């Protein structure tokens, strides 16, 4: 039953680019591409977040991925397919370099969050400082592939047709969900939950704490880099403020918490709500309500943490499960 619903939903999503929606068509596709891309990134963040490894610096990994791919292409015409691998490897290496000492010397909770925050800021500041290469605060624009490619270049990962990006984003998002599922059903999940509850106790029963934490961190960082590459190739413009540093890192955290970081679709629901709200306010009010979307987010974030720590989707899901349990056991 649930599989049938999921399959029907996916079929509808796959068919969407072919619907004749006229002029609005491209705009809806654009919003959906953004939602899938960021839902993927936010799901990757929640891989760590759900186990109490709260990172406030995932912007670092997004930025490393996006900038590696774009800069390698702009300067040496190296295909983003290779540049992307470099970016993912770079993010993974940074994750190890930061993660290993943190986990080995038990930097946890507040302290871990603040270290990651510093890492995000370091990447943002390095991008700004190396302005000869990266364009600094002004950002950098992805150079067009050769004109004869006709707006479709697989090697350059540039497609004039939004439908191509739509399918790529959809596939990447589904891949992210699959990874989340796989972690959820593995021994690593039990191990990580034990570590999240009590690190000393987990170590005492023989769980290699450092190794498990490091693995999940590298996985999360690498996926975020993939998200960053996809985003960079799609919007073709990178800016350190929107791709690294505190701002984007907190947005990632916020969307995941809003939807619920303990469930499969929670981060996706959170992303869809935040992006839809931002787009609605932008289209409906233009710059008149500058900052209003974030004001609402901030307020919602505070209220959700206080009243619904499981997030919107997470809470609904818990309620549904409880209801089903009472329905199947009427005697109680």
């Amino acid at each position, binding site marked *: 039953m649930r599989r049938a619903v999921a399959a029907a939903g996916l079929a509808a999503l796959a068919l969407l680019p072919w619907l004749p929606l006229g002029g609005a068509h491209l705009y809806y596709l654009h919003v959906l591409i953004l939602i899938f891309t960021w839902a993927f990134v936010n799901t990757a963040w929640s891989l760590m*977040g759900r186990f*109490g490894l*709260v990172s*406030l610096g995932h912007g670092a990994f997004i930025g490393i991925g996006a900038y590696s791919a774009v800069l390698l292409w702009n300067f040496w015409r190296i295909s983003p397919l290779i540049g992307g691998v470099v970016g993912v490897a770079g993010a993974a290496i940074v994750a190890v370099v*930061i993660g290993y*000492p*943190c986990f080995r*010397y*038990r*930097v946890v*909770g*507040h*302290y871990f*969050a*603040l*270290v990651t*925050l*510093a*890492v995000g*800021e*370091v990447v943002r*500041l*390095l991008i*700004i*400082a190396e302005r000869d290469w990266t364009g600094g605060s002004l950002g950098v624009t992805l150079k067009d592939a050769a004109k004869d490619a006709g707006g479709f270049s697989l090697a350059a990962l540039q497609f004039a047709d939004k439908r191509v990006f739509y399918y790529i984003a959809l596939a990447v998002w589904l891949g992210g969900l699959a990874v989340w599922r796989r972690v959820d059903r593995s021994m690593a999940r039990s191990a990580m939950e034990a570590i999240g509850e009590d690190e000393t106790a987990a170590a005492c029963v023989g769980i290699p704490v450092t190794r498990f934490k490091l693995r999940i961190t590298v996985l999360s960082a690498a996926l975020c880099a993939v998200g960053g590459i996809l985003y960079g190739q799609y919007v073709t413009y990178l800016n350190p403020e929107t791709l690294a540093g*505190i*701002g984007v890192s*907190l947005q990632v*955290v*916020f969307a995941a*918490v809003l939807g619920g970081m303990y469930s499969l679709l929670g981060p996706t629901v959170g992303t869809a709500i935040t992006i839809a709200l931002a787009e609605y306010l932008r289209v409906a009010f233009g710059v008149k*309500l*500058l*900052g*209003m*979307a*974030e*004001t609402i*987010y*901030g*307020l*919602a*974030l*505070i209220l959700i*943490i*206080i009243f619904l*720590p499981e997030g919107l989707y997470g809470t609904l899901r818990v309620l549904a499960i409880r209801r089903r349990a009472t329905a199947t056991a009427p005697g109680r």
Partner: protein
Amino acid sequence: MDAILIAESAVNGILLGGVLALLALGLNLIFGVVDIVWIAYVDLVMLGMYAVYWLVARFGWSVWLAGLAAVALMAALGVLVHLAIIAPILSSPPVNQLLATGGLLFFVQSFATFLFTTDHRSLRLALPTLQVAGMYVSFARLLAFGVSLLAMVGLYLFLTRTYMGTAMRAVSQDREAVALMGADTRRIYLVTSGIGGAMGGLAAVLLILQYSVHPHFGASFGPLTFMICVLGGLGSMPGAFVASFLMSEVISIGGIITSTEMAYVVAFVIFIAAIVVRPQGLLGRRA
């Protein structure tokens, strides 16, 4: 590199350290007693700066009067934040506490954007620049440094010489035991948040004298302030003090030798290394 230039930036670093120390002390006091990091602390200070700005520029108050009003306002704001946001999540996991104050950061920053737009606003006071032994020293910074020192001494005396201060130190050592002794921890938390807010207000007055205020002001000083608190040892007053001057010197001298961004990068890397090697901070005790 000119030696006088380095010396000048070293002196300016000390003066900047005074302001940073003031920001860090308020945040650190709250952390030490309430055990929650206010991620939004510097953004609240930004609101204090706006308060001074509007009172002076729009309503023509004198800077002194506006400053006093801002300190009072910030103290009230500190109490309000505690009652509205911190009190309900006192027993939540630390992660949730961090995220709730992160939400406050979002809210304050964006609401300020909405209300005041992103314009940079400055009081444009013509404060003199002093010339000492061939070095130029800004009077605003010297004033900020002096007031910071006084405030720190005042806070120290309050914490060690008064009944309330002793109770606050007791809570930071063992909150359960203090509650068992019959002390009213809720009242202690409220007073702490009020004083933390007032310290923020004081910092706001000193900051608006030398910087222009804009909604993203918190983003430029916020991360640095947390790092100073952690580097010094969260909850340790002397630690925060030492860390403030260490960081401000790195930024000030590093900024002259390379670029401002690289100086911050160096400061942050020092922070990351320090926290791994010595998580309890420079002068902190192991919890």
